């Protein structure tokens, strides 16, 4: 649904986007992660047809956005990170205006306004003035506006920026709902934990380059992150730790911490081997109160990947 090939954008000597190649499938929620200035907004603006790339190609829903930006507007819904609202307009009037600006017939528009208000959970705010809404509600109305012409693809640039925790949770739920509706969504953020729970795949952008693009599990394997295991034993945690260390010598297994009856382990192994750890403990007659793998969060992945990238860059700079 979204395909870019060697997409590059430079402003004079400043390289904003470097050789980006993406392939996002239909119905996917793609998390686009990177620090401020990495090139996320530049990518989104190119894909929305608002910015011309320096080189490369970009297609959205089989439309070449570089050659046919007007056509791209029919299939793309775009919500920028900062957008304005009109004073003195009610929510439904605001949506009606943009629907009319997309040349939607009036009869279709009327029903569609009700629909997008319902999708975004803003039915009750229909008659409220848009400029009187809180930021979280304005973000929802912004998504409703991006949906008004029923695009196949949505580009949401930092949709949770400035929102309180509850609003962020609601935004994540909305993203999942959009996926259920069959929309392809590219959502950018620099707040990593939010994307981890909703995205099918993530792409990590650092200093205008795409470092990684894959599913979460594959990303985990790719970065060779060790898995963290927590075990609470009935008694003798030290003995349990020693037994584990003897059976699975370092670097396979490393006991990183012992707190009371709880052991924290760093383990490099697949799912079957993790199950084998528990089986071993039971075989040894060690009573286990609970056993769990601590989910690796996106922040760790991000830090690991970007650190590796920087180290790699330093090595290549030194070699030159």
């Amino acid at each position, binding site marked *: 649904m979204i395909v870019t090939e060697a997409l590059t954008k430079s402003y004079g000597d400043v390289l904003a986007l470097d050789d980006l190649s993406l392939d996002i499938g239909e119905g996917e929620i793609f998390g686009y992660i990177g620090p401020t200035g990495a090139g996320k907004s530049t990518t989104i603006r190119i894909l*929305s*047809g*608002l*910015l*011309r790339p320096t080189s490369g190609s970009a297609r959205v829903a089989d439309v070449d956005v570089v050659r046919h*930006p*007007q056509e791209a*507007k029919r299939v*793309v819904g*775009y919500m*920028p990170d*900062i*957008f*304005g*609202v*009109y*004073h*003195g*307009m*009610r929510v439904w*009037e605001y949506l*009606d*205006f*943009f*629907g*009319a*600006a*997309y*040349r939607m*017939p*009036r009869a279709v*528009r*009327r029903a569609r*306004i009700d629909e997008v208000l319902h999708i975004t959970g803003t039915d009750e705010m229909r*008659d*409220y*003035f848009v*400029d*009187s809404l809180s930021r979280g509600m304005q973000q929802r109305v912004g998504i409703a*506006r991006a949906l008004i012409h029923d695009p196949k693809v949505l580009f949401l640039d930092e949709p949770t920026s400035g929102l309180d925790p509850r609003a962020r949770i609601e935004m994540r739920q909305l993203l999942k709902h959009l996926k259920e509706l069959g929309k392809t969504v590219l959502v950018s953020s620099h707040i990593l934990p939010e994307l981890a729970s909703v995205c099918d795949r993530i792409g990590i952008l650092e200093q205008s380059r795409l470092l990684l693009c894959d599913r979460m599990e594959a990303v985990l394997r790719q970065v060779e992150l060790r898995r963290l295991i927590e075990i609470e034993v009935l008694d003798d945690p030290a003995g349990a730790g020693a037994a584990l260390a003897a059976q699975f010598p370092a670097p396979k297994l490393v006991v990183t911490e012992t707190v009371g009856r709880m052991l924290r382990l760093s383990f490099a192994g697949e799912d079957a081997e993790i199950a084998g750890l528990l089986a071993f403990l039971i075989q040894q007659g060690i009573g286990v109160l609970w056993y769990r793998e601590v989910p690796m969060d996106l922040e760790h992945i991000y830090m690991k990947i970007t650190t590796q990238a920087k180290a790699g860059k330093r090595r290549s700079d030194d070699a030159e």
Partner: protein
Amino acid sequence: MLSNPVLLREVKSALRSPLALALAALYLGVLATLVWWMWPQEGIYSATARASRSLLLVCGVAQLLLVILYAPAFAATAITAEKERNTYDLLFATLLRPRDIVAGKLFSSIVVLLLFVLLSLPVFAACFFLGAVSVREAAAIYMVTAASSVMFGLLGLSVSSVARNSHLALVVTYLLLLLFTAGPWVPWFLLEQQPWAAKFIHEARAFSPLGAMASVILPAFEPSGAWRTYLIFCGAASVVMVAFIIGRVHWAGPRDARRHGATIQDPAELAQRRMSFPFYLVDPQRRKGCIPDWLNPMFAKELRSRAFGGGRWIFRLAAACFGLSMLLMIGVVGNLVGPTPNLIRSVALVFQLGLIVLIVPSLTAGAITQERERGNLELLRMSRLGPLSFLTGKLGVALLFVMFLLLGTLPGWFAIYYLEINTMPEILDAWAVIGATILFALTAGLFSSALAPRTPVATALAYAITFLAAIVTLLPLLTADQLSVRLREMILVLNPFASALQVLTRGVFDDLGILWQRHAVMSLGVSALFLIIAFLRLRWLLLPQK
């Protein structure tokens, strides 16, 4: 005071901006051009030479007009711009006391304007070589100009302290400036023929900067004490405005929370509202329909978000125009001021054109810049709204506003037609000029909005263009003896007041050729040029950027 951080920042940022440099260059350019143009060929040194006094009059008035034009640009947005940038509250969160903030804003607004006044000293020094002015007169001229700078700067700041946004602050400040500058001349215009009103006329004119300037340069026209009265008035008004600004800044409560608003559903309540003015015309709270397919979405949006959504001010303004024109006409027709048809026509024309010059540029000056500033242009670029729809929508709503205002002035035109039945062709010719002026002012606003980076700059530019065409081109009236008839005609043909007055009144500009046709053609030509430039610029803005 010199260490006041607000003062230092404001003065630095004002003087560093390219706009300040451009304004200073324009200011000095205009004054220097006037001096060069009017320099007597014979170069006679004489304190009584008419050429010298004419030069002094023109320079003094030009300097005063430029200061009046510049005051809003620097002062009227001083507080509103802070609020729009969300830095106003940050100031109060610092250790600065409220009085430091107020003092910084006050003095920075005045200092920049006074700097401009001082810049003109070398130009005025040239007048000394002609023997045109004594030291005493020069000092009086500068005191009047400086006092006007201070007072109008404070006026702009006062408006800024209450206005919701910079655009509104600019427009209201320009309107009030006109009131202060031209308002005291209205009694002279209306009651000149009445002997009993002579004293009142002189006293009223003393409160105008133009009257004060005239009393220094033309003591035969204006009593010589008028400029002292004006300085006292400036001082008193300035004190009142300073107190007002301090009060507003110190004790302004939290901003009114925008009402959520609800649509009225109850039929009985709807029926009741429908009986009251103006809701039987349009009632935002009963609006239910989507934008029709045949209607320009931008036009509809502008009506809903500004005009009729906040329709009170347009109706009030139209009602005020109606009331004022009725009063004027009753006063004139009812023999209160003299039954001359010429006077009636002149009053109607000046009122009509003055309204257009003062209000119309602001209707379109924010057309494009406001969309950019509020972050809506990006969203509009994603839609299928083209530059033509955009411009015609904005222009359409502005024209609708203007129609409402013109409706308010109709009583005057009925009176003109009633007094002299056979004046219909002349009335239509005058309306051609009025129509051309309306288009000129509207397109000047669009042009400015397309090129300027921000709305206050666009508004100031739109007013500068309109004032240049409507007011500055009247300067030849002050130099009647200096200019050839041909040159006077070439300049006055650009002026809508001159063209319209010539066609509708008798004995006005009779020595010149027919002005109105050439004026209308030139005005429409320039309007078309403005529109084309605005269209091309907007089209560029809506295209994918490189």
